[in-house]
């Protein structure tokens, strides 16, 4: 085992697109952790989805070894996700490190997400090495970005490194700084095993593999271990360190980062942030900071073919094996049949789950309008959790509804304060404070209903600020709101999957827009279709789809037959995927219409 003074554990904090994965690739290359052959862009991002989207969804870890000045160093790099949906995973990765590379894009400066993660790192007493990245870009604004960093963490200008993930410039300096400035892990004197789970992945051969940082003591293959939050005991079938692949070891000790295979098949049994100890000789206290991650956004997922319900359940179960933050329970919809109400960390998480179902399980699903969790209070004084608008108590039984709030921080340039203020007010936000971080950067704090940022907030924020606004939030409490249930009717039949809870002040415009969008998305049929939006019995908007008068091919001769047959077959296949609401056939994309209201 490596002496502790030669170990460095660090992670990289960066805003999305600031070049974190590329720089990580450079570090791997420099330390020969990957061969040229193995190196592909974003080496650490295993999932195709991650590479395509250029984002990190799951955390990853890798050990690099380097001989320098006669010493054999072990660097454990813990890669972290950069999206706001996954901030809990980031916090656990940070807790597993002693140091952090604060990576800031020289062309864009510091963003809100970076700051909140940086505060996390400072709270955990991590050594921060600021690095200005992309210094080779013609529009790099190195000095300004250095100023921002100095303002933020109070370091000296000469402590800030410059680098380019693209050219590899600055990489040796970064390595040297990691050795010199990041402290080696320290053992608080404890000898009993205490290991932090900062991530877990599902492997179809090994089951769930826990990625851990050993804080105290050591763990050897074959020992009986206990997960302190769940209280369950397991055997450590295999322990080892993380290289490009798993590298089994007889044991791993304090200060090190590695993995433990326990044969657990269900990822719900392993909770990120939990503490592992020895069942036979447990440590006293858990490592602080453990949270049970709760989903923020809910949506119904339904199989396109109703016969695939069981397959969908199986796919979700498998997906949950390596995505413990995904929750689901069965529900039924009149329009869509049997499906599941699923909980997600955010909309990106929802999209990712949807895409993974499609790619990894060949399972196409219809997703209903996403919503947040509400509390409904009945006139009889009951408090009901509402994760689906259809569960809202009807009529006179309902007393009032409470909705979740968030505290949001937005960092931008002063010239965008006005438009951002307007956006947040439109979204029912309340300004809580405004602070100039530098003359060119201002931080605005708002209290906003969570439901308002679920749809089209982030995109609009980006567009009104030309990309110069970053956004971060924390859940706040619940607050009573004037919320109504808006229903959509097709030829008089309520489409439960399209119901939504919405603030009364916005219901009319929303209903109108939704009807208009549905008119675009529902194909014409051989009869007239009325699309209506209603609050209770009151119709507040209407659109009409005229009947299809003509649908006939002009020419059908020798050369037309194959093409025409394939076209009509395609139509029939498309029709099979549609859902029947009364006589009306509704394509699946119509159920997601709400998300596309402004397109």
């Amino acid at each position, binding site marked *: 085992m490596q002496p502790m003074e030669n170990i460095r554990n660090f992670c990289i904090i960066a805003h999305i697109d600031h070049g974190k994965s590329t720089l990580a690739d450079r570090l791997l290359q420099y330390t020969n952790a990957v061969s040229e052959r193995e190196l592909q862009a974003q080496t650490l991002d295993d999932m195709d989805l991650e590479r395509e989207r250029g984002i990190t969804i799951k955390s990853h870890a890798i050990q690099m070894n380097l001989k320098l000045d006669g010493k054999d160093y072990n660097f454990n790099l813990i890669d972290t996700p950069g999206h706001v949906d996954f901030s809990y995973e980031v916090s656990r990765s940070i807790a597993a490190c002693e140091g952090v590379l604060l990576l800031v894009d020289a062309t864009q400066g510091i963003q809100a997400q970076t700051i909140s993660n940086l505060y996390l790192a400072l709270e955990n007493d991590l050594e921060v090495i600021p690095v200005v990245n992309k210094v080779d870009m013609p529009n790099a604004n190195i000095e300004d970005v250095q100023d921002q960093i100095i303002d933020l963490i109070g370091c000296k200008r000469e402590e800030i490194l410059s680098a380019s993930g693209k050219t590899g410039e600055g990489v040796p300096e970064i390595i040297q700084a990691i050795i010199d400035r990041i402290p080696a892990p320290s053992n608080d004197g404890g000898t009993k095993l205490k290991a932090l789970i900062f991530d877990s992945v599902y492997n179809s051969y090994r089951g769930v593999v826990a990625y851990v940082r050993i804080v105290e003591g050591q763990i050897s293959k074959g020992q009986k271990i206990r997960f302190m939050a769940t209280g369950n005991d397991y055997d450590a079938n295999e322990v080892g360190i993380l290289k490009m692949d798993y590298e089994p070891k007889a044991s791993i000790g304090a200060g090190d980062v590695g993995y433990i295979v326990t044969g657990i098949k269900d990822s719900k049994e392993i909770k990120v942030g939990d503490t592992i100890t020895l069942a036979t000789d447990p440590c006293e206290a858990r490592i602080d900071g453990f949270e049970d991650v709760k989903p923020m956004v809910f949506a119904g997922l339904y199989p396109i073919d109703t016969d695939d319900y069981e397959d969908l359940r199986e796919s979700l179960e498998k997906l949950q094996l390596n995505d413990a933050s995904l929750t689901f329970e069965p529900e039924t919809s009149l329009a869509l049949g049997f499906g599941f109400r699923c909980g997600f960390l955010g909309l990106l998480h929802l999209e990712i789950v949807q895409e993974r179902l499609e790619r990894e399980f060949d399972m196409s699903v219809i997703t209903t309008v996403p919503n947040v969790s509400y509390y409904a209070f009945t006139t009889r004084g009951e408090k009901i959790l509402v994760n689906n608008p259809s569960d809202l108590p009807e009529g006179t039984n309902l007393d009032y509804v409470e909705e979740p709030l968030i505290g949001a921080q937005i960092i931008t340039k002063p010239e965008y304060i006005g438009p951002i203020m307007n956006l947040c007010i439109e979204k029912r936000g309340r300004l809580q404070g405004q602070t100039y971080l530098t003359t060119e950067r201002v931080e605005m704090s708002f209290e906003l209903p969570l439901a308002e940022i679920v749809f089209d907030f982030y995109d609009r924020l980006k567009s009104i600020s030309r990309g110069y606004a970053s956004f971060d939030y924390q859940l706040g409490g619940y607050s009573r709101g004037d919320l109504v249930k808006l229903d959509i009717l097709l030829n008089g039949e309520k489409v439960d999957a399209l119901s939504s809870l919405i603030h009364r002040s916005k219901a009319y415009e929303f209903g109108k827009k939704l009807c208009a969008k549905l008119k675009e998305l529902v194909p014409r049929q*051989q009869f007239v279709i009325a699309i209506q939006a209603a609050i209770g019995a009151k119709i507040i908007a209407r659109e009409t789809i005229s009947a299809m008068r003509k*649908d006939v091919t*002009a020419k*059908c001769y*020798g050369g037309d037959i*194959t093409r025409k*047959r394939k076209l*009509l077959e395609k*139509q029939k*296949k498309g029709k099979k995927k549609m859902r029947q609401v009364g006589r009306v056939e509704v394509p699946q994309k119509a159920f997601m219409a709400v998300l596309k209201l402004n397109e």
Partner: protein
Amino acid sequence: MVLSLLKDFYDYFVAQDLFTKVNKKQRRLAGIYIHIPFCKQACHYCNFHFSTIMKGRSEMIEAIVLESRQRSDYLVGDEVETIYFGGGSPSLLDKEEIEQILAALTEQFQVNGLAEITLEANPDDLDPEKLQMLKEAGVNRLSIGVQSFREEDLRLMNRAHNSEQAHSCLENAKLAGFENITMDLIYGIPGLCNQDWRDNLERFFAFDIPHLSAYALTVEPKTALAHFIKTGSYAAPDEVQTAEQFEILSALCTERGYEHYEISNLALPGWRSSHNGNYWKGVKYLGLGPSAHSFDGRNLRRWNVANNAKYVKALRSGENYFESERLSTEDRINEYLMTGLRTEAGCDLDWIEGEFGLQLRQQLIKAASPYLETGKLMVKKNALKLSLQGKLVSDRIISDLFIV
């Protein structure tokens, strides 16, 4: 006159499918399609394969002749009853070129002496000399692309001819002794009101021509028309008006004794198109020339490359120039539904049961039931047929009946 009588007799045979019945043991029927991929100018709505560059015409004819030789075994044991020059603009061909092709066909295949030989012609090509020449070359049926008698429609569609030529070519064709004539008309053109359409049909009736192909203007993707509509230069065809004009077409023609025997085809008794009729009956056909399709009458379809230069080069060098597909049972059922339902005869349920089983018959009736209830489909003498209102939405109905 004698020819006309013979023609009547022959058409009667075709209509009753007597040839198939008589010849079942000896010879099967077959047709040959020749694609002439050249046009003087591009019509705005057309998405067929053509080139407006005439260079390489003789090479093209040679390549087509070459293809007919290479594929001489395709129709072994079959009697060619119909030959069809389509395009493109086959009326650009001169006498030698037509004779060259027909000679090659007669040499390679068993061509019936009474074969229907159709040539598609543009009005502006049909002067008296040309018509005489076509007659001498052996063409006995003309399909004339009149499209409209109205100047504004012709301009909108970028046709090469004008209204005057639309009239005179028909006169000339009759004077030249052509009796078996069909012409194309297009309806649903933006700006063509229902009365204009009735006037166009009246002018057609005035010429006493026995066959009409009437097509709803279709905006095919990647055509000039699609572009003009997208950019707002032209109005899109109005669906309601197009539907009304289809109804007018059927009513007026039926009044005049024409049979609406396929969605886009109407003929006086005895004057149906044998060649096109065979496409819908699943008869075997050989297609020659770039983009031409062939069908073996059972389950093999193939189509040539839709590129003049590639086609000529491949034929010369012996490279592959076609793609093919083998039809599954489902494909065959779907094709039968698609082509059969468009015709007056409809789809023979007994034949379906015999060929594909009782279960399929029942399945089809079940899928058809919503349309049977609304009268868009009907069952008459064990044949599933579209009513006039059904024809208007036939694509949807056919697609709903498909087995996928």
